[in-house]
């Protein structure tokens, strides 16, 4: 192969030939995710790093307020292994899952919405050798970097508060990145359907009940069976349960199901997002 469409590197003077690359997904992917990531880091962290850095404050405030204040009302709760644990230890992993979801959704919806409709960023990117899968993976990687940073900060604070009781709990960091991946890969695809600010409100509208109902603050058993099934079909509940099990190092058959749920969600989300970007810009 001489110059491939993927590399974009040509020795000066050579005639550039646009040949399809031999790689799998060659028409969608040029193996240059790092360019999208580098641009994103420069743009977001360069302009509003204070907002980015303070993003992990929210779950910490929630933890302090709900853990101490509500904890004084609730007392102890039954943990994943059936043992009684303090309320603050009960909600901590759930709040980490929620913040992974929030960070990923925020990054992959509002930011993408602006870049799609106002900045026309992806149009510019796709006029280069970058393919829709590069753009999707790059944007999602950005969201994940942010999510990993917040998760690490939050887990460090748990450690300082003496809420980390087992080495297994450190696995909460990669697990929250997996959760963020699931939400981010879907968020971007869904955002591509949105045209107005008002439609974007629906995203928040779906997130709030999911946050409140997904066994974050109390066990699922308080609900009637039908509502329990509904919540178990939604992704956040699986994330909350997974992190809760990791936080105490208790594993069951359900652990595998939670992980599998997210793997399927990631794959489906990537397929949706790539297909949408292709439809929008590569007609």
């Amino acid at each position, binding site marked *: 192969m001489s110059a491939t469409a993927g590399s974009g590197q040509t020795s000066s003077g050579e005639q550039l030939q646009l040949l399809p690359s031999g790689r799998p997904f060659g028409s969608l992917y040029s193996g240059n995710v790092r360019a999208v990531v580098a641009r994103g880091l420069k743009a977001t962290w360069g302009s509003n790093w204070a907002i980015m850095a*303070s993003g992990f404050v929210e779950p910490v*405030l929630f933890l*302090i307020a709900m853990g*101490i204040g*509500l904890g004084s*009302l609730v007392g102890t709760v039954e943990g994943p292994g059936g043992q009684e644990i303090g309320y603050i230890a009960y909600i901590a992993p759930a709040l980490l899952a929620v913040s992974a979801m929030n960070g990923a959704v925020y990054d992959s919806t509002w930011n993408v919405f602006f870049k799609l409709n106002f900045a026309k960023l992806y149009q510019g990117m796709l006029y280069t050798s970058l393919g829709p899968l590069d753009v999707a993976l790059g944007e999602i990687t950005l969201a994940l970097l942010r999510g990993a940073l917040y998760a690490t900060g939050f887990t460090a604070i748990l450690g300082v508060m003496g809420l980390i009781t087992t080495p297994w709990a450190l696995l909460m960091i990669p697990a929250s990145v997996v959760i963020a991946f699931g939400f981010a890969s879907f968020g971007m695809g869904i955002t591509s359907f949105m045209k107005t600010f008002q439609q974007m409100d629906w995203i928040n509208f779906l997130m709030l009940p999911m946050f409140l109902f997904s066994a974050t*603050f109390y066990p699922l058993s*308080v609900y009637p069976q039908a509502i329990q099934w509904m919540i178990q079909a939604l992704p956040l509940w699986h994330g909350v349960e997974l992190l809760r099990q990791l936080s105490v190092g208790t594993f069951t058959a359900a652990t595998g199901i939670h992980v599998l749920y997210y793997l399927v969600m990631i794959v489906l989300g990537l397929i949706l997002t790539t297909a949408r970007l292709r439809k929008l810009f590569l007609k």
Partner: protein
Amino acid sequence: MTEDHLQPGPTPSPGSASAREADAATPLLSLRVPLTPEQSAAKARKYGSLYFAEHWIRTMRGYGWTVAMTAVGTPLVYLYAMGVGLASLVDANTNATLDAGNGAVVSYLTFVAPALLATAGIMVASEENTYPVMSGFKWRRTYYGPNASPLGSHQLVNGHALGVSFRLLLTTGIYFAFLLLFEAVPGSTGWIMIFTAALGGMAFGLPLMAYAASIQEDRGQFAMVQRFIVMPLFLFSGTFFPLASMPWAVQWIGWVSPLWHSAELGRVLSYGYGEPVWLTITHVLYLTVLALAGWAFAQRIYERRLGK
């Protein structure tokens, strides 16, 4: 249409008697003498605040579907999650007693309901007094047209405040209906919460409006407001648990928080929460003073900025 409705102005044509008969037959063809420019300017100077409020409410109809959904959906979700789900944990824990301050013990749902209503007021106020205000000055520049007309800048402030009050009352009214549906309001004076929660919203919203109007360059200040003011207020204002259960180091957040004052006031009205009378009066005064101060600041900032 009668004689005294005719505006003083150029006298009507000689055929006015038959015109009046035609009027009686078809009101749509009423031959009212048009206002002179001076008269309509005088009218605008008199009723300008209402004109702008009308414009504001008509604009709101553009996102009316969102307003309706949030006004109905939010109370349902929160009441079910907190008032039913979380309550089952709290009420099962016999060590925790939410005493009403008068010896009686209230259920968690009753305790949390007035605070949820107060929170709805704060949330609507923070939504309507941030980006919409900024876009009036910066992105869509909706203030500059009316300001070039006989309307004064103070009337834009009043009109916006009236519009926000309207949406607040709409939201708190619907919310209160849901509280009744969940049987969360035992007292007979509970309905006054519709107004105190709206007042709480204005106490938070008007100072925020003044701040939003003073922002020259958007650098994500509103995200910071949301993160460092709205969220902490929501969490540390004795909303989901009595303020007294928090350490002293953070209790002061409640004392300066409009949300705490609004929620406590609601608790007094809803189930006769026993607090000293001077404290109840303090809640009302504090909220009123905050609202008035914010209003005065907003007027000054609008006037300076639009007068440039």
